[in-house]
């Protein structure tokens, strides 16, 4: 081997080592964040953490029950609003690939996907909070639903596109009406992909804070009234993390761990379903 070839091979090896080093370095911040949140959070979690509402500064033993309940309600209502609209428009897009409406609708989904969450917060503030005259959980749900939509539409469209046309033709040839063909044949075939899209969208919005700042606003007490302000986990973390009190920081650490576990669990379930159904999202 001549020195020239040795140099070239050496260069190649150096580059490979560098690339692998840089790529492996991405593990460090992830481990640092996960490790720190788990370390700080695990000691703050006990029974009263789940069942109590936050106590005033100085009193020990507060919990985050209000934020837990609030998060579930806000995300649940958002899902109820976004899932039917998202799936139905996804069906439209996969059924009418070339119509003009499909073009504009697809463009809108693309745009919606890139809109910063804070901007959606502003818009929903003017649509719902201002006309009603007070912050409300329902406005927070609307903001989150808008953020869920593009993910659900996309996953539905992509999943249904993969189904063979023969399936549809067979159903229609048997004399099935159009809506029954969609609801009884096409949807059940693609339900795995659609569900994982839904789950992914819930995981995405469960940690969203910015659109809730001007809509759900937060509430130090336990509330289940969706027309009144309501707390949620990410809002609580933001408010307490930026406060100067150690008691509140402790609550925020615990809440961070719960939020992290919730989001990761949803992601893992999504992954398992996508693997089972062999879907590319």
């Amino acid at each position, binding site marked *: 081997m001549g020195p020239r070839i040795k140099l*070239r091979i050496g260069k*190649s090896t150096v580059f490979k080592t560098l*690339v*692998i080093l*840089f*790529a*492996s370095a*991405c*593990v460090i*911040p*992830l481990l*640092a*964040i996960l490790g*720190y*949140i788990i370390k700080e959070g695990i000691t703050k979690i006990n029974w009263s953490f789940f069942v109590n509402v936050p106590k005033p500064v100085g009193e020990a033993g507060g919990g985050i029950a209000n934020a837990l309940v609030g998060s579930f309600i806000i995300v649940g209502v958002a899902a109820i609003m976004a899932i039917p*609209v998202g799936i139905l*428009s996804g069906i*439209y897009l996969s*059924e*009418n690939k070339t119509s003009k*409406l*499909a073009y504009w*609708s697809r463009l*809108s989904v*693309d*745009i*919606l*996907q*890139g*809109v*910063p*969450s*804070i*901007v959606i*917060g*502003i*818009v929903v503030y003017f649509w719902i909070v201002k006309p009603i005259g007070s912050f409300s959980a329902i406005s927070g749900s609307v903001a989150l639903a808008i953020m869920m*939509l593009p993910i659900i539409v996309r996953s539905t469209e992509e999943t249904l596109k993969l189904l063979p046309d023969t399936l549809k033709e067979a159903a229609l040839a048997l004399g099935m*009406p*159009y*809506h029954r063909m*969609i609801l009884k044949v096409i949807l059940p075939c693609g339900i795995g992909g659609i569900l994982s899209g839904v789950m992914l969208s819930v995981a995405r919005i*469960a*940690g969203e*804070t*910015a659109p809730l*700042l001007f809509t759900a*606003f937060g509430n130090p007490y336990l509330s289940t009234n969706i027309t009144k302000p309501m707390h949620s986990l*990410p809002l609580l*973390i*933001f408010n307490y*993390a*930026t406060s100067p009190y150690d008691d509140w920081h402790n609550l925020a650490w615990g809440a*961070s761990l719960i*939020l*992290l576990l919730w*989001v*990761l669990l949803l*992601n893992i379930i999504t*992954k398992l379903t996508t693997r089972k159904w062999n879907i590319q999202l």
Partner: protein
Amino acid sequence: METTVNNPGATRRDKLRVTSSLQTPDKVNVRRLRRSYRQIRTENAFRKTLIIMALAIFVLVVGIMITLIVQSIPSMKLLGVKYLWGKVWDPVQDIYGAYPFLLGTLLTSFLALIISVPFSFAVAIVLGEYYPRGWFSNLLKNVVELIAAIPSVIYGFWGLFVLVPIVRNFELKIGVQPMGVGIFTSSVILSIMVIPYAASMGREMIRMVPSPLKEGAYSLGATRWEVIRSIIMPYTKSGLFAGVLLSLGRALGETMAVTMVIGNTSLIPKNIFSPGNTMASVIANEFTEAASPVYLSALIELGLVLFLVTVVINMIGKRIIKRFTNE
């Protein structure tokens, strides 16, 4: 029903029912007609629902745009175009200039890109070329997905308590004012958050390089590095660029993590270590406190600018990807 007449397998009861209905043919026809009418009506209603839903998404986006434009009209009228490069933001004196926030946004986003690009490209090359499958590739893929899954408020919280002290020590060492919070800290947080976007896009693009091209280069005696540099890189150039654009779109609009560690001052940042504000963070901080209509409207105009910039960047990125995948 009439099919059962000649069907030997039909039970006696079926036959009875058929004969009985045959005695009144008009009645059957009416019933059947009614049923098919009902079915056609449901079918049409279903088709219409689909169209309405698809239309709803379009209307939603148009509505978002109109709301932002209408609400920022007062500030456009009062402050004019020079609002965008006005250097002072002082709501108490009713002076509004967006320049500090534009500068803050650009600084944090581009700094974040510069920090994150080597890492995300490295991930893309490892996953796309060196280890397309195997345990290392699985591990790396999961790491990148987890980085994307962590909520931004948790990044902010972690940054505030872990990264800020580190940066403060670093600033003490290099002799700038040790604030800890600031443009630099938010860039570091952002750079972690945007790695997955460019990385997964880059991986897809590198996977799509036709193997005859690579094999040709190898058979001419090229090393791995030479193949990457002169085959893969030129071929995936535009795709990698699109991935970076998507990262940029995310970095521009990111709110919570940045708000928590940037220091929140409306002064023009002197260097990359000084505290500042981005467009998103100033909206998050001051929107609920904005007392006067002009103040509120000025904030919404910031939102409008943010919306337009991110939409344009995302659209360009998506266009490039679409052209790339169609080729």
